[in-house]
Each structure stands twice: as structure tokens, then as C-alpha cells.
């Protein structure tokens, strides 16, 4: 791996950490309408680079998320990986410059990851009341709202995320 690519992965990890920390900030005021900024970055990069995108993106996203989340590592990794696969399928089907496809990929990835983490948490706890303190449908509505905010954020700010400093080697199409 060339030095530029190595540096790009290190910066990608750092950006994921800062974006997750920003999410913590935003959550205090936006509540369930907080977009998943890490997934916006992942979906935007995958849409731009298509099949050349790698699982390294999932690693950066999940390891930074794990530092701030109560969810079990296996659930986060599985959810992030499924989100990545979904975004890659969308990238393979649609043109990279289609903003709505990017928003759809981000929305789908957030919905898939959020629902999976919710499902896994409920299964592990034995009931959703013990897991999230509410009805399953209420919790799912929260996931849907957050996914919608993520899609909207990808629609409006996706290009900004793709052009974050240092990520050029990761956005080259195959």
C-alpha cells in the first residue's frame, strides 16, 4: 500500500471519530432526528468509489462507534457490514453522481444497521422493554426517524463528506 493510501485510512478513522463525537453534540439538541454522520460518510464514499470501496470503511466506522456505544460489538459490526453491502449494491446499480441514490443508500444503510442493532439488543435482553424502555414499534419509529435524517443529510451534504481532506485515495472509482 502506498503512503498516500495509508494516510487516507488513518484520516478516515480520525474523521469517523470526529463525526461520531459531533453526533454526540448534535444529539443533545436534535434527539432522534440526529443523522448518523459516520454512515453518511460511508454511503457517500461507497457511492463514489463503487466496487473499489473496501471493508476498511466498515472497520473505521464500527471501531469508532464502539467507543461511544452501549451496543455489543458483534451487532455493531454485523449492522455496519450489512449497511456497507447495501450501499455497494446501490452504487453498482445507480450512477455515482445521482444525489437521490446516495441519499437512498445512506437511508437504507442507517435503517438496516439501526434495526439490526435494535433486534440484536432485544434478543439479548430477552425483551424490548428491558432493552430500550419502550414498545418495539416505538423504538423502530426512532430508528426510522434517525435513518430519514441520515438520508436527508447525505442528500444535502454528501459531496462535502466525500471531499473531506485526506480522503482522495478512497474516493477513486474502480
Amino acid at each position, binding site marked *: 500500500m502506498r503512503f498516500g493510501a495509508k494516510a487516507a485510512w488513518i484520516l478516515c478513522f480520525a474523521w469517523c471519530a470526529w463525526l461520531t463525537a459531533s453526533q454526540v453534540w448534535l444529539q443533545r439538541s436534535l434527539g432522534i432526528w440526529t443523522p448518523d454522520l459516520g454512515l453518511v460518510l460511508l454511503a457517500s464514499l461507497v457511492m463514489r468509489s463503487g466496487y473499489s470501496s473496501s471493508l476498511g470503511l466498515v472497520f473505521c466506522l464500527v471501531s469508532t462507534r464502539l467507543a461511544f456505544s452501549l451496543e455489543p*460489538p458483534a451487532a455493531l459490526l454485523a449492522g455496519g457490514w450489512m449497511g456497507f453491502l447495501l450501499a455497494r449494491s446501490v452504487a453498482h446499480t445507480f450512477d455515482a453522481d445521482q444525489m437521490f441514490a446516495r441519499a437512498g443508500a445512506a437511508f437504507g444503510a442507517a435503517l438496516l444497521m439501526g434495526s439490526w442493532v435494535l433486534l440484536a439488543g432485544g434478543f439479548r435482553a430477552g425483551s424490548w422493554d428491558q432493552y430500550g*424502555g419502550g414498545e418495539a414499534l416505538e423504538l423502530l419509529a426512532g430508528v426510522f426517524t434517525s435513518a430519514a435524517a441520515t438520508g436527508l443529510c447525505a442528500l444535502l451534504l454528501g459531496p462535502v463528506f466525500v471531499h473531506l481532506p485526506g480522503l482522495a485515495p478512497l474516493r477513486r472509482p474502480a
Partner: protein
Amino acid sequence: MRSVSRSRRTRALEALALLVLLGGSLSTIPVLDRILLVLLSPARVALDLAGPGLATLGAQDPPDVVLRRREGELALDLAERMSRAAQPQELTLPLGVRAVEAEVLARPTDRPDALQVLLADPRGLQRGSAVVFGDVFLGSLTRIPSARASGRAGHLGEVRLLTSRNARVSGLVGGEKEVSPRLVVGGIQSAARQDHWYLAVHNPQDEGLTRGMVLLDDPDPLLSVANGWQLGRVALEPDPVRGGQRVAGLEPLVDHEAGLARVLVLSRSTEPAVALVPSAAGEWVSVRRGMLLADGQRVGFPLLAGSLSGLRSGAAVADGQRFVGRVIRAAPLNAMVRRIEDPGCSVNVLAVREGDLEARPFVLGRIVSLGLDDEGRRAFAWPGERAWTGNQNEEVQLWTLAGEAGVPGGLLLGQAALPSGDGPHVLTVTVPGVELESPPASAALPGRLRVFINWEASQ
């Protein structure tokens, strides 16, 4: 051709790994979780990278020093009261018998009828020695520290409770009767009432006369030192075959599941036993915390130290003397704490009347968090199997009870008004001087917290 086959192999491996992860998400696979924590250990770097921003989120007013000092004094007083509660209340120790204090550390995960204990003075104790709490007989020692063990390992023992399937002792119906029928007690008998159980009674000598309190009366030389200690009160139920009433079992006199924090081991010796050192159950370390990415109602926060610093899953986290939550996972360099107000988080507690230093603490047992209510107060579900006999809605302080792995006794949970009567009840708990908000509520905590370490009973 070769690259096509490699690509297929890679995809097959990816699919397999994803399947394993999907399975590992739905149920706890400890090995997988441990591997993933090591693999994803760069997470610690993410906490450091996010550090400057998060430091401002942790800002908190300086704690009320007088209030905190008072809480520390109350905790010490509580430890003394727990010690007094374990001593015989109406009975007196026979001559030549000594009582060795033991703190309950945990219950082995695969044996709920066993207690792992820290013995204050293991000298002279044997396998089979009688174990009591107050005037109640509990069971016998099944493991004693080896003579070669030193340090903490030289004080670790294990108790088999009378609720165990294989436990059997001889009893005698107490009271001022001319004839006291004998019976055998041990194991559990399920009751007609849902979620209720009795100590099982075997071969009662005269079922018609088996009424009232049953006392231990065993010929075993190690158990006989506790003869006269109470086993339980006879519970009756309608006899569908012969009519009238029959013996259903013995109503237990203590909460075997959650109410045992300190017990006594009786042995024949004239040498006085050494008192229990309060800090022997574990140690505290100070650890820096980060801020939580809250999902829905979930509440917790990361710690900037992990298993390399001695942190283990299950360890209690405290702010001074106040119980904050428990470590749910510990990676080598970082850990995650689940706060007590996170829905589903539970802890064993006891209640103490404020200002009443003489009263015996009332054991509530396990309470389960229901999250924060609209006003930001903690709500807990309390089964209330043992009804509170004090005044309706009396203000009490709730403290943690030793006996749960990783959580020492004497940490303040907060204040609550206890409803009387049979449960289940919902308790609303407030913490003096702390205003919680809907998540994230970590801003109400200082930047450094205490974490309980070196508490494992297997050490």
C-alpha cells in the same frame, strides 16, 4: 481464472464471517465478543481523538463536599449495621463456639444455590461447617481455602445453601409442645402461588403436629453447633385428597436470592475470630470517562481505561459513594459503562430509614430500571415479595447490597418513598443535588469516576 477463483473464495469467507457475526449479535458468545474487542481496540484512539470536545460536555458544578462526606459516614455506619444484622439476635452462641464473619462476594453463574464468600478468619473452619445469618440457619461450607493459599485466595470459601437440591438437614418443630415432631428439610418446593417457593419438607414424623417454627436439630458434629437456629415457618395448603390442610413446605425467613450480604460461619473453638476488613472485597481505581452516543433511552458512557487496568465486565462504577452503573464490556484500553437508569439494568438494594441509625436495614432485593420518567427521575420496578411494613410512602435511602459479583455493598442509589403492601411496585428514586435529564445525562457526572476492581471470587 485464478483471480476469479480468489474473488469467489474471498466472497465465501466474507459471507461466512458475516453469518458468524449475525449469530453472535443475537446471542452472547463470549469468545467472539472478546476477539472483536481486541480487533476493534483502536476504539480507544477514537476516544482520545474526540477528547477535547468531550471534555466540555463533562463540565459539572463542584460536588457538595459536606453532603458527600455525610454519605461516606453513612456508608461506614451501614457496613457496621450489616455486620450487626448478621449476628444472632435472640439466640446466644453456645460456649466454645465462635462465629467467623464472611462477606458474600457473588454466586457462581452455574450454581445459584451457592455463595462465594470472603472469610474473615478461615482458621479452624472445615467443609461442612454451619453457616447462619442472624437467628436463621442457611447451609454449610463446601469449600475452604487451602492451607497453602496466601493473600486474598487464603480467605475464599463457598457456601451451599439449604435451597440446594442435595442439601438435607434434620429439623424439629419448635415451641412449648410436649412432643416435637421431627422432619427433614432441604431443597425447594414450588408453591401454588405464582413466583413463590418453600423450603422442601421430607418425611415429617407427624404431619398433623408440624406447625409453627422449625429449628435445626442435626446430629452432624459440624452442624450441631447451630442446633436451635431457625429453618423456616411451616406453610400449609389445602389437602385435596384427605381434606383439611397439609404441609406445603417451610416459608423461608431470609431472601436467599438477593438478601444475603454478610453471613457467619460457626465452628468449635475458644479462640476469638478476627473481624472482617471492610475493604477486603476489592479495590477502587479512579478512571477518566467520556461521553455517550445515546440510542433512544439508553444511557451509559465510555471509560478511558480497560482490562489492562484491571477493569472487568460487571464492575461497579461510583461517583464518590454514589452508585452510577456497571461496566458492561472491557476492551484492553477502554470500557463501556451502563448507567443504572438504563432500562433493564438491575441491582440488589436495601432500604434504610433516614436518621434512624438503630433500625435493621430492610432488604428490597433486586430492582430493575424502567428508565427516566418525564421529570428526569429514575424509575425502578420492585417485585415487593417482602412487603414494607413501615409507614406508607416513607422516605428511605436505597443502598447497594453486597453479594452480587462486582458490586460492593454500601453505595448510595438515592432516596425513594417506599409503598407498603404486596408488590409489584414502581419506585421513583432521586439523588440529592443531582438533576437528571432525559438522555444523555452523563453531563451530571464528574470527569473521573471510581471503578471497583480485583473483586473476582476466583482470584
